[in-house]
């Protein structure tokens, strides 16, 4: 057993730290304030191979592993939850289902541009009435005589909606079969009948665009079906297993970034004639936070390790996301407390980090869903 990073993973961490400090942190507050998608950062991420870290070079990726992908999201999220979200949602939700279930032709046409970063991807599962109960899909895809598909319906809260080029979406292809009647499809942003609906104003990760997707008599050729007909629910669930490692990494980064800033602040802020780091009550708060963050990191790395080594990771990823997300919320709330009034105003990053942390308890499966998944794995026959 070895807890150390490999030389390459260490270099990855160094690269991502430098990149985050120079390219991500300087605009983090600005993109939050303006609710602006950072196209310029995404272009730089593409240039350095960070949009396809864990994919093979033959397909245009960088040839890394899930641990490196996790490290990249963690380092970015230390300074900007939005950027962590963009890397994660693109590389896992957008690209992975095509990587895992696509035909060679689909991979060449749709996946390569995603993992070489020339295009970005998104994932459309959630609907107004199908959130945690993802099986209650109302979007339908009807098979036409020529084998093409007629899709009608809508999706909500789609990360990257309106900025992404390629979407993997889910629709009912056989209503009588429930979970086993859902199929996955690849949608291009220019497909006729596809449009972007409402763009949401969010509490946190405000630089990441979230929107509604609308399908009105959208006809997709037969070769847009991803995986098997009626096999979509499994694709969605497996994709989310991996996505959770990304969100857990994002939560971990937000927590670590907040604690790093609070520790620095405590050394500088003087009250009652001594700096805050001399107060034992606050020291203990920091010790507890640091311990939870380290525990979260071990869970995240373990889930990533399992994925890289072909071991089961459904339970591990759910545990990592559950614990990292709740740690992020707790740590950022306490760090706002340590900052006091300065934590509550927008001039300092802490309130933004607290707002960004909240989404990690909600998206890609709420904390309650993670508990369902974990319990389901424990009690499964």
């Amino acid at each position: 057993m070895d807890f150390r990073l490999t030389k390459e993973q260490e270099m990855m961490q160094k690269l991502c730290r430098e990149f985050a400090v120079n390219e991500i942190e300087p605009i983090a507050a600005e993109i939050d304030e303006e609710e602006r998608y950072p196209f310029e950062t995404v272009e730089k991420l593409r240039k350095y191979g960070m949009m396809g870290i864990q994919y093979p070079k033959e397909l245009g990726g960088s040839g890394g592993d899930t641990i490196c992908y996790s490290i990249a999201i963690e380092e970015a999220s230390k300074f900007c939850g939005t950027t962590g979200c963009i890397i994660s949602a693109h590389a896992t939700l957008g690209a992975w289902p095509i990587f895992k279930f696509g035909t060679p032709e689909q991979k060449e046409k749709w996946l390569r541009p995603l993992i070489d970063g020339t295009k970005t991807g998104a994932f459309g599962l959630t609907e107004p009435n199908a959130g945690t109960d993802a099986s209650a899909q109302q979007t339908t895809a009807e098979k036409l005589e020529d084998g093409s598909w007629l899709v009608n319906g809508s999706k909500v809260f789609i990360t990257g909606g309106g900025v992404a080029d390629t979407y993997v979406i889910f629709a009912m292809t056989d209503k009588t079969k429930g979970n086993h009647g859902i199929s996955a499809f690849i949608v291009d942003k220019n497909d006729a009948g596809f449009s972007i609906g409402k763009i949401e104003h969010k509490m946190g990760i405000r630089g990441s665009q979230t929107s509604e997707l609308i399908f009105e008599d959208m006809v997709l050729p037969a070769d847009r079906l991803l995986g098997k007909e009626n096999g979509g629910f499994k694709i969605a669930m497996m994709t989310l297993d991996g996505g959770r490692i990304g969100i857990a990494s994002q939560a971990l980064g937000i927590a670590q970034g907040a604690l790093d800033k609070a520790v620095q602040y405590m050394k500088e802020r003087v009250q009652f004639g001594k700096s805050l780091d001399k107060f034992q009550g606050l020291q203990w708060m920091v010790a507890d936070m640091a311990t939870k963050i380290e525990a979260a990191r071990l869970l995240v790395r373990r889930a990533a390790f399992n994925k890289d080594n072909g071991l089961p990771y459904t339970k591990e990823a759910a545990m990592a996301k559950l614990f990292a997300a709740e740690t992020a919320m707790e740590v950022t709330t306490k760090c706002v407390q340590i900052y006091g009034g300065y934590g509550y105003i927008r001039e300092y990053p802490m309130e933004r980090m607290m707002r960004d942390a909240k989404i990690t308890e909600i998206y890609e499966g709420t904390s309650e869903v993670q508990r369902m998944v974990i319990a389901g794995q424990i009690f499964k026959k």
Partner: protein
Amino acid sequence: MKVIVCVKQVPDTSGKVAVNPDGTLNRASMATIINPDDKNAVEAALTLKDNTGCEVVVVTMGPPPAEGMLRELIAMGADRGVLVSGREFGGSDTFATSQILAAAIKKIGLEADDIVLCGRQAIDGDTAQVGSQIAEKLNIPQVSYAADIKVEGTKVTVKRMLEDGHMTIETQTPCLITCIKELNEPRYMSVGGIFDCYKKPVDVYDYNTLKDDPLIEVDTIGLKGSPTNIFKSFTPPQKGVGRMLEGADKNTCAELAAELLKKHII
């Protein structure tokens, strides 16, 4: 065409600076970085590679852990590295270092259309002597303080940055150019580069590899071959806080003149 870039691993002076009792830097306890000017030299080489497809070889003299720095430079885009390392080379000053690096460059092979790039100076010693001495020992033209480099075939045009202006010099390959930070903005490592960097060659040149070169003699390398003796190393006292005089009236001028007179400046 190939570009050979000489780089040095230096202590990171932006972090903790540790000093030994004798006043020398305690390098072992300090984090290391790639010398900043050298990184500009590497970027210049990689830009030439982007434009011409030339080979980029990074070379450093240092202890075995310096290999990590060469790997990072390969992850940025260099093709291979050469680590010049051996006990015999320890304690070298700029004279001895340039003897050894010149011999290493000859071993790598300096051809008619090749260029050697160095950073202007290292942030630990700040001598700016090694690049120039290498050029002398290789008997090739040198251009220092490059703020712009253009290469067309064997013709090299360099804009030098001087204190009070620029000077443009045209020379021929093979030549040596020292680079300054104004030359470019160094790129990061790429993720793909990181996963390939341990698959690319880093050759180690020790004393035995270089000993047949006429530049390498017992009294031209290492501590014995170093004419520089450090008399004393110390941290200079900080300058005191200055005093601002404001105003354009006669009294202020008189006060200023009196102050300067008191300090024997005028």
